[in-house]
């Protein structure tokens, strides 16, 4: 089910908001013990919100998202509802206020189904690094859903919510969307306020929607992208009609595909992305190969840059200012801080904090920033000649849990380092039936163009839903 159709059904009273909420709660009860998408669900809270939404509909006061059941990634503050960033460090933390994005969804009268699993502090690309549980891929429960917004992507894919919010630092929306066969968009840096979002690397982090279609993503992004002065990196935008290019012809638009990323990808992925390219060509787009050789350095530069910022951001979790307190008895404050952090952070967070601490001490950070600027420059040059850039979202489909095959950031980190908008939408399946995603990248603030292009492809693509 998608938001667009549900809106019509709710408004015409074919279905009630409470009935819809119960449908999703029943599915969560039935399937989530195995899938592990949710960290927190409160049935009575969901039904109260649904009743309120129904009153709005009955009074004719509904908005686009009134009564729509949505899941929220667990690093986004929800007032009165536990928010842990999937970490032991924040196990009992309950925020006293809402994130800006949650405020905006509440203004719309949405129904929050619950909090969704993720890699601890968004550090990971598999959801194996949640302190609480591993989320499984709905298409094959032996495989990862991707990450860090893996709970969000798996929940949308398994119809345990209509849509979800995720956050993206190096591909954490687009990569799990590709692995789980759904659509996700990382907006231009500065489009959505991060006020109330627990940061990983705030110079890269963006919040964005994960849904069943590009159209649904546009509906959500319209609600989320309101200006908020509490996030000082926000751009004041007056171009947030994300539906502008839906249904428009694409004849004459210039699309470049990045050859290095095409060659890096598995053959099944390469074949599917080629089909997308040929489809756009058949619709009148002008297609050309482009080369961005510096992208191969993006992964290492990203790791250096993001871990350095992550180390700074996570310094405050010491058991005194914020977070977990060890039961161990200590002689002094410094020892207590080390013990609190040593016990509460998981292995991946520790790994990144140590790398970040190392980076902050030497010239590596300077080099990483230079490479970041180089990649940004490459994208800027490419957008002088092209309207859209296309590449596979990942080089492989979802891999087995515990397989340690974590080399899937290569296709996504470049846009994060550059702050560009990107969208992943399903474009095929491998021989095992695992979803494949194509990544559509636009120039700064051109979300409407990539949404329009994705919508065009989605209208003729036949999805294979997961069999639960």
């Amino acid at each position, binding site marked *: 089910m998608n938001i667009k159709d549900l809106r019509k059904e709710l408004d015409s009273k074919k279905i009630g908001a409470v009935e819809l909420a119960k449908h999703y709660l029943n599915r969560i009860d039935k399937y989530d013990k195995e899938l592990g998408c949710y960290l927190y669900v409160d049935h009575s809270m969901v039904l109260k919100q649904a009743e309120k939404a129904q009153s709005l509909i009955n009074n004719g006061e509904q908005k686009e998202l009134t009564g729509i059941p949505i899941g929220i990634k667990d690093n986004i503050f929800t007032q009165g509802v536990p928010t842990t960033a999937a970490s032991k460090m924040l196990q009992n933390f309950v925020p006293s206020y809402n994130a800006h994005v949650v405020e905006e969804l509440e203004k719309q009268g949405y129904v929050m189904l619950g909090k969704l699993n993720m890699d601890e502090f968004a550090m990971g690309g598999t959801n194996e690094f949640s302190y609480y549980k591993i989320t499984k891929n709905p298409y094959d429960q032996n495989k990862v859903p991707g990450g860090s917004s893996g709970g969000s992507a798996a929940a949308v894919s398994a119809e345990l919510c209509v849509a979800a919010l995720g956050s993206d630092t190096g591909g954490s929306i687009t990569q799990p969307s590709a692995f789980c066969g759904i659509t996700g968009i990382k907006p231009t840096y500065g489009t959505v306020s991060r006020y109330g979002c627990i940061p990983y690397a705030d110079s890269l982090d963006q919040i964005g929607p994960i849904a069943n279609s590009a159209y649904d993503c546009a509906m959500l992004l319209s609600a989320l992208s309101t200006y908020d002065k509490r996030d000082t990196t926000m751009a004041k935008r007056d171009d947030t009609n994300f539906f502008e290019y839906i249904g428009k012809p694409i004849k004459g638009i210039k699309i470049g595909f990045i050859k290095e990323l095409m060659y890096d990808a598995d053959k099944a992925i390469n074949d599917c992305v080629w089909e997308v390219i040929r489809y756009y060509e058949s619709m009148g787009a002008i297609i050309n190969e482009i080369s961005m050789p510096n992208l191969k350095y993006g992964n290492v530069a990203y790791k250096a840059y993001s871990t350095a910022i992550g180390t700074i951001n996570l310094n405050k979790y010491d058991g005194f200012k914020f977070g977990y307190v060890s039961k161990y008895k200590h002689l002094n404050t410094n020892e207590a801080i080390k013990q609190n952090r040593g016990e509460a952070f998981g*292995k991946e967070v520790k790994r990144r904090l140590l790398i*970040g601490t190392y980076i902050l001490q030497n010239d590596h950070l300077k080099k990483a920033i230079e490479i970041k600027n180089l990649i940004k420059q490459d994208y800027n040059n490419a957008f002088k000649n092209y309207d859209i850039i296309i590449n596979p979202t990942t080089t492989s489909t979802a891999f087995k849990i515990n397989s340690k095959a974590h080399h899937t950031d290569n296709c996504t980190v470049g846009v994060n380092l550059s702050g560009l908008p990107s969208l992943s939408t399903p474009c095929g399946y491998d021989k095992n039936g695992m979803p494949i995603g194509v990544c559509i990248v636009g120039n700064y603030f051109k979300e409407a163009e990539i949404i329009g292009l994705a919508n065009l492809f989605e209208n003729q693509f036949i999805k294979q839903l997961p069999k639960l």
Partner: protein
Amino acid sequence: MDKEFILNLSNKANITLISTEVEHMVKELTLFNQAMSELYYVDTSNFKDEEEVTKTLDILRLRHDN
């Protein structure tokens, strides 16, 4: 990279590590350093905005120190 280096680093990062984590980090940081060293072969001189790079570095180090 050796165990002593990692223990010093974990001290600076304010994190206790168990012995298996120390051994694991020796390998991880060695690999990361090797990957990082490849970046120094990339010529960034043509487009390097020294002022912007320095500004970004200063901000991050200031945040870290505070």
